[in-house]
């Protein structure tokens, strides 16, 4: 559905995207993950025909973005990081205007607008001026304008940006509800959100693709070993010293020691040995749990070039 081949984009001397290549299949929900300034928005703008690549090309639905931008524009719905809204317009009038721009026939416009408003739960604000809507509703209108012409591909740039926790959950449900009807490519710098909505994650750093895969595949790339968290009623320097001396202990993080927690990184599962040592050193163990390899840690390592 989308194929990006060796795309680079320069802004003067600055290289925002470097020789980027990836493929997105029909029906997938893909997340572009990266820190601010990593090049995510630039990639989405190129796919949205909003920006031309300096080198390379991308194909959307078989059409070259560089050669046949108009055909590509007909296939996509695009939500920029700030929804393109005319504040003086009412929701329905705005969506009807966008539908006309996107080649929806005059007869079909009411139906298409109704469908878009139903999908995004906007029917109740149909006659409200866009400037009077809350940020969450404005973001919904932004998505509605992107899907009003029922495009095959939805490009959403930071769709949860600036939303409160309730609105984030609503937006997540909305994006998940689009699965199967559209191929969705979205960007975010919030790892936890992207893992909850996307089938596959493309990790972007300094304009380059540094990792790609599903959440579990990315976890598989995390450093091997296990992480154990101890909750102690009492911890002594002697206990920590004894734990450090155990075979298989790689590192002990005492940053949460004041709250009674010790985080231990081990090369393999030595939990029985740890429990035994705590008892021997009168550590008063309250609980011991195994932590999964943190995706945040992996992400941090990826963008720092550690993996």
């Amino acid at each position, binding site marked *: 559905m989308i194929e990006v081949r060796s795309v680079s984009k320069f802004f003067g001397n600055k290289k925002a995207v470097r020789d980027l290549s990836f493929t997105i299949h029909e029906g997938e929900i893909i997340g572009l993950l990266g820190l601010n300034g990593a090049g995510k928005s630039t990639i989405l703008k190129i796919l949205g025909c909003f*920006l031309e690549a300096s080198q390379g090309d991308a194909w959307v639905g078989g059409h070259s973005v560089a050669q046949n931008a108009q055909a590509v524009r007909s296939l996509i719905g695009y939500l920029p990081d700030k929804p393109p809204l005319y504040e003086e317009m009412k929701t329905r009038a705005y969506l009807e205007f966008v539908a006309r721009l996107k*080649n929806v026939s005059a007869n079909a416009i009411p139906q298409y607008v109704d469908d878009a408003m139903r999908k995004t739960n906007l029917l109740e604000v149909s006659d409200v001026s866009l400037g009077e809507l809350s940020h969450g509703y404005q973001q919904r209108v932004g998505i509605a304008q992107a899907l009003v012409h029922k495009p095959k591909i939805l490009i959403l740039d930071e769709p949860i940006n600036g939303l409160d926790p309730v609105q984030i959950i609503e937006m997540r449900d909305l994006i998940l509800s689009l699965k199967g009807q559209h191929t969705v490519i979205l960007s975010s710098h919030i790892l936890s959100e992207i893992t909850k909505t996307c089938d596959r994650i493309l990790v972007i750093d300094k304009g380059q693709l540094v990792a790609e895969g599903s959440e579990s595949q990315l976890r598989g790339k995390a450093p091997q070993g296990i992480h154990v968290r101890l909750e102690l009623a009492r911890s002594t320097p002697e206990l920590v010293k004894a734990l450090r001396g155990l075979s298989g202990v790689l590192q002990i993080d005492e940053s949460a020691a004041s709250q009674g927690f010790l985080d231990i990184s081990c090369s393999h599962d030595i939990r029985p040995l740890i429990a035994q040592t705590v008892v021997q050193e009168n550590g008063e163990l309250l609980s011991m749990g195994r932590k999964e390899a943190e995706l945040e840690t992996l992400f941090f390592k990826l963008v720092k070039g550690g993996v």
Partner: protein
Amino acid sequence: MGKIVSIARRELGAYFSTWMGYIILALGLLLEGILFNAYAIGDSPKFSADVLRDFFYFSSGIGMVAAVLFAMRLIAEEKQTGTLVLFYTSPVTERELIYGKFLSVFLVYLIMQAASIYLPCLILLEGKVSLGHLASGYLGVMLLGSAVLSLSLFASSLAPNQLLAGVLATSLTVLFLVLWLVAYRVDVPFRDLFMYMSIHNERFRPFSIGIVHTRDLVYYGSLIFFFLEASIKVLETRRLQG
């Protein structure tokens, strides 16, 4: 064509959904009325044709100012509010966008001129007005105004915000206005060139006295077309460079 009309309709709505459009219209008409009474009619006896000529003279000046104010926001405001992306990511060409914008502002300008028609009609109370003179004068005002509209639209496509667009549009308009003065200070062929390019003096006066020259129609038509196409090129380039 459908998209041009859609864009123009939305833009028209934007003019009249806020006070801005009404204020510019009202102030323009108020000034025209004052100048018509104070100077065009004046204290001394005048021929009706001279009153009409003076009316069109003032009308052209106020029209140019109004044209800059109306048009300076057209693209610059889209850039400021981030709505330009809507057009760039929709199957809409830069040409449709520019012509749609121009159509809307042309209609607003037309409404302003149409609303002033009661002023020349007042001459009928105590004099005679030739319909040909009236039509010629309004044609001149519309052509001159449209040229300033397209020039201001071009400025709007270049500038990052409305204020700069206004400054740029005003500067360009003044430049085209004073070219005939510059023409007297330079030698041929620049004298002929500057005289030809001057937007008001030599071009507009014939219309104001009821004379329509084909060369003036071609001049205004070319100027409008040139700046509309230049605006399209600016937007295309902007899309290429980001």
